[in-house]
């Protein structure tokens, strides 16, 4: 890792391409944190994992199709619609299984994830055996490689993240209401089914945007970790969303600089470990829910109780 380059990347002085990548990752992190806070409150953390993994077969199929048609197969304009289609199929399959069978949601989501991602790996192993350099670069979509993003891809990523963030801001109040009280949301005329579908679509958008930069495998952490960290700092849903958004943005910016300085490492694991540090730190010291203050409060309460009991 090159510390000087890292510092220059932090100051956006590491080439014009890096500025775009940093902006893209920053907004991606912000959108992921924002949407993630709604997903966490609505208990959809595992669905994000399924959506992230389930983009792979669609992406691989779109790649093969473009190759067969003689087009440029690595363009996101091809890969994203493919990924969106297979993620939508996975959501549909999970819904169908949940409605039709007595299996627990955990088991259904895990099984759907494994089968879709397995299909993706099957297609990917076929792509890797193809002759020539045609297949190079597709396995970056597994763990992400932000430093290798083209400027056009970075701009597309930025646009998708902005779209997800704008939609989430527009519907934020309704999504929060739905998470806390679906019954009241229905009475207030919000149509819970439609809002749920919107939330799933937003999660899908974030997973797609995360694909080239963070990878299919770890997209879930980008969504869940900032929101879980923010939950430790605040008991107000609004403030939780704000904290998660800011945290995601900061992690994205830092992750882009790290990825620029250490291009041999995949961006996904780097970014997730950064967010993990924030989560672990918050778990230790956050004011109300952190372990340190909890322990101190508990000890003080015990002392008080002992003192009171000692009185006649």
């Amino acid at each position, binding site marked *: 890792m090159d510390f000087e380059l890292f510092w220059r990347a932090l100051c956006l002085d590491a080439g014009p391409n890096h500025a775009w990548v940093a902006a893209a990752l920053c907004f991606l992190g912000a959108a992921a944190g924002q949407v993630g806070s709604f997903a966490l409150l609505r208990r959809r953390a595992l669905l994000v994992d399924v959506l992230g993994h389930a983009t792979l077969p669609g992406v691989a199929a779109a790649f093969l199709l473009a190759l067969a048609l003689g087009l440029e197969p690595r363009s996101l304009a091809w890969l994203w619609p493919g990924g969106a289609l297979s993620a939508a199929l996975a959501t549909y399959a999970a819904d169908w299984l949940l409605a039709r*069978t007595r299996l627990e949601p955990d088991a259904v989501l895990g099984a759907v994830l494994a089968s879709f991602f397995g299909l993706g790996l099957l297609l990917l192993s076929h792509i890797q055996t193809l002759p020539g350099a045609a297949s190079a670069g597709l396995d970056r979509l597994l763990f992400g490689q932000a430093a290798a993003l083209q400027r056009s891809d970075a701009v597309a990523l930025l646009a998708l993240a902005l779209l997800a963030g704008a939609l989430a801001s527009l519907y934020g109040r309704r999504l929060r209401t739905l998470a806390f009280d679906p019954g009241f949301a229905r009475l207030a005329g919000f149509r819970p089914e439609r809002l749920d579908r919107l939330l799933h679509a937003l999660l899908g958008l974030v997973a797609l945007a995360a694909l080239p930069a963070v990878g299919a495998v770890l997209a879930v952490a980008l969504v869940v970790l900032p929101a879980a960290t923010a*939950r430790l700092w605040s008991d107000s849903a609004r403030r939780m969303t704000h904290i998660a958004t800011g945290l995601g943005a900061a992690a994205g910016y830092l992750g882009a600089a790290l990825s620029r300085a250490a291009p041999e490492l995949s961006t996904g694991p780097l970014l997730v470990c950064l967010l993990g540090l924030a989560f672990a730190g918050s778990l230790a010291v956050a004011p109300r829910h952190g372990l340190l203050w909890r322990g101190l409060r508990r000890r003080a309460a015990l002392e008080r109780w002992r003192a009171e009991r000692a009185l006649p």
Partner: protein
Amino acid sequence: MNSWDWSRLAALDLPALLCGSALALAASSAGTLLLLRRQGLFADGLSHAVLPGVVLAFLWTGSRAPAVLLAGGLSAGLVLALATRATARRAPLDAGAVLGALYPLFFAFGLLLLEGASGGDLDLAPSHVLFGQLEQLAWRAPSDLEGWLDPASYRRLPGLVWHSLGLWLGSALWLRLAGRALFASGFDPVGARLLGLRPGLFEAATLVCCAAIAVGLFQVGGVVLALALLLVPAACARLLTDRYRTQFRLAALFGVLLIWAGYGLAVFLLPALLGTQSLSAAGGISSLAGLLLLGVARFGPRRARV
């Protein structure tokens, strides 16, 4: 492939199928236990979280012996289970959210270790973690009848084959010994406690058993195969029967069936149709698993929620 090549079959496919079948048998019973106890989430968690343990064990000892990696992966799985439990008890987050935050974190940490420490000379590449190495287990198979009768040639079988057979035997023994107690404590913890059993102890032992199987699956087939084999056979069996014992048997049947059919699909059928080299066996098995689950849910009896 145009003609049957028996030496290839014995050298490459026999060890893979042996290893896969033993692991499928072990995984189907572990998955059934997890599903009956509504702990399907742990299949997700365990299959991902063993990675940092496996990598650290390798980096620390420099050995790739299955037993060393098993110890590492097992400890990582247990750390995940304990950390999830402790965090969900204290923080204002439900268990799903905590696990959803922690297991990608474990996985990412493992990947980072792998990429940072390897520099390319480790033959446990990051993509290996996803694809597994089922189709790459090679055995210098004996060429004549005399060799097949000689015990020495079986000693050359890849270590992972013996390791998976051991895991299968171990889990089968545990199930045989503790089956009744597990049954009682799974369905009725209070009643089991009244009978003098200790449900907490059995739960912990079962979790260790499942973690060991997850590590074995992970070493051979990667994350995806581990998840698919833990969840899908058990889920299919759950949809077909209401009987405890039958569920275990059906799950075992489905597991072995998936291994053979998926391996055949990825290594023989698809390459023959497409005219390419063999594809990822873990991918083939997992995709077939999805089809099986859809088929059972569509056509099986007893599928409704009670």
